[in-house]
């Protein structure tokens, strides 16, 4: 077998592990639920196009705000959150419940590399599915507005907005993903922490400034190109500058991942009967 050590070996092992997780996340029967979730915003956009009255087809003025609200309150909160939960919890907890994790622990792979490899696989798969969904939804929002819609889409600001949404979605996958990977490693029943965290995220708009810093959705919010009203009771906190939000999200992801890798070192195989 190959004798190379250090970076080149780890890089190759990470690619192998990532490829396998991508294969499992995209093409296995189990990923049906994630595809269903990802199809929801697309169906939403199609239905909107179907029922759009003639009067509004001429111009695309408030389509941007309409999409922004759908993005923040529906896509980010439900679709990305629960897709990440399904894709990242199964990386470890899924394999423990199916009693197939030991095959990974019997391979000549360091536990940290195993964690990183699986995480990257999950991240790429979720970013691919959800990224495609967001882009497709944006296009389908502007399509029914004919030339005006197309003009906006291809304009500098339109493309800028699209890119911002894409970056927000990918970073959301990274942050939520790392969190759920960790939840899968620690908890026998990761559903409970997931629901608690969702509750915390839903409360964020109503929390005072410094508490907002503890919730991922606050940083994601400040990355979204179009400001949206958080509803009457929200405590407005001055938004975090874009670059700081990106740095914070990456820091959160890497931090949680490191914690996961450290926990994986102590992993033992005791598939106790449930």
């Amino acid at each position: 077998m190959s004798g190379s050590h250090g970076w080149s070996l780890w890089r190759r092992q990470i690619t192998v592990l990532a490829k396998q997780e991508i294969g499992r996340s995209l093409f296995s029967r189990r990923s049906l639920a994630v595809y269903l979730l990802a199809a929801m915003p697309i169906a939403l956009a199609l239905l909107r196009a179907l029922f759009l009255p003639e009067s509004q087809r001429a111009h695309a003025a408030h389509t941007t705000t309409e999409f922004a609200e759908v993005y923040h309150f529906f896509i980010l909160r439900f679709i990305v959150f629960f897709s990440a939960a399904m894709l990242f919890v199964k990386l470890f907890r899924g394999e423990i419940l199916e009693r197939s994790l030991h095959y990974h622990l019997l391979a000549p792979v360091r536990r940290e590399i195993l964690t990183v490899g699986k995480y990257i696989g999950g991240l790429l798969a979720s970013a691919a599915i959800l990224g495609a969904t967001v882009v497709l939804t944006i296009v389908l929002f502007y399509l029914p507005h004919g030339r005006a819609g197309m003009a906006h889409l291809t304009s500098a600001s339109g493309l800028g907005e699209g890119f911002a949404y894409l970056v927000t979605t990918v970073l959301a996958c990274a942050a939520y993903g790392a969190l759920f990977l960790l939840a899968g490693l620690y908890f026998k029943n990761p559903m409970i922490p997931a629901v608690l965290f969702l509750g915390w995220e839903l409360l964020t708009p109503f929390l005072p400034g410094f508490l907002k810093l503890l919730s991922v959705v606050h940083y994601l919010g400040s990355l979204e190109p179009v400001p949206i009203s958080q509803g009457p009771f929200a405590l407005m906190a001055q938004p975090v500058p874009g670059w700081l939000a990106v740095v914070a999200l990456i820091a959160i992801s890497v931090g949680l991942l490191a914690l996961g890798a450290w926990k994986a070192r102590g992993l033992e195989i005791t598939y106790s009967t449930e």
Partner: protein
Amino acid sequence: MTADIISVKNVSKFYGEVLGVNRVTVDIEPGLTGLVGPNGSGKSTLMHLLCGLLRPTRGSISVIGVPPDKPEELFRLVGYCTQYDSFPNGSTGYSFLSHTLALHGLDGVDADRRAWEVLEQVGLTEAARRRIAGYSKGMRQRIKLAQAICHDPRVLILDEPLNGLDPMGRAEMIDLFKELAGAGRHVIVSSHILHEVDLISDGVIMIHGGSVVAEGSIRDVRGEITAQPLQVLVRCDRPHAIAARAFEFAHVVEAQIVDEATGVLLRTTDAGAFFPELGRIILDSGVEVETVTPADESVHAVYDYLIGDGGGGP
């Protein structure tokens, strides 16, 4: 620490208060070692400890010089076929094997070649493309074996590898293990089918209640149990004649008619003198003999003496 033995020093493992293994100290030489013991005696726990799937509560382990908590080096040398009858969801025989090979650093053409080679060895070429969920128990066992030997390990640890295999499969696998053990490798086989352990292993480790009860070659182990005189079973048409004549010799301590008077079980404290004399008794008494076998040279008997019939699971 010579780099050619698997050494376990004073290792204990508890799951909370549940006993896994208790102060096990054993050195395993290359060759085929049988690991024998009732269900729940700690066999699987010991094997998990050797492969780092479990961390010992106390004590130290070295597998041909490599500590088990270094998976990167350990699993270049070690292959482990566990008892779990579960597989990654939705994988086929070929995909399961090629992924394992990829993790070992083999990919592309030589991974494919090696995969088919191993599938050939375990007799699964026909079913390789089908989902493992559809395999029968014996076929699942074979694909697990393939995964354990695909990277040509120097140490092979097998937890009940023949479980569910058909007679032909058992014979093929036993030859494979012998061949591997012959090439200076370590092959550790845990099994409940004692006459197979008898047949294939050079040495035996007997575990009961989490601790090692006996260790070494079967005949030495049997020799050490001097308390129990040697038992010989003679099946013939007139067992009473044999029993009567046998008591003429001082070293014969017991004769028991068994199985509805189709045989007699003789116990002697001096095996050397016993067999020639037995020959003469048979000739003189003109008895038609069907079988003469030392009843307790086998692992069965040693198992019964050391662990006892009631030694069933907890």
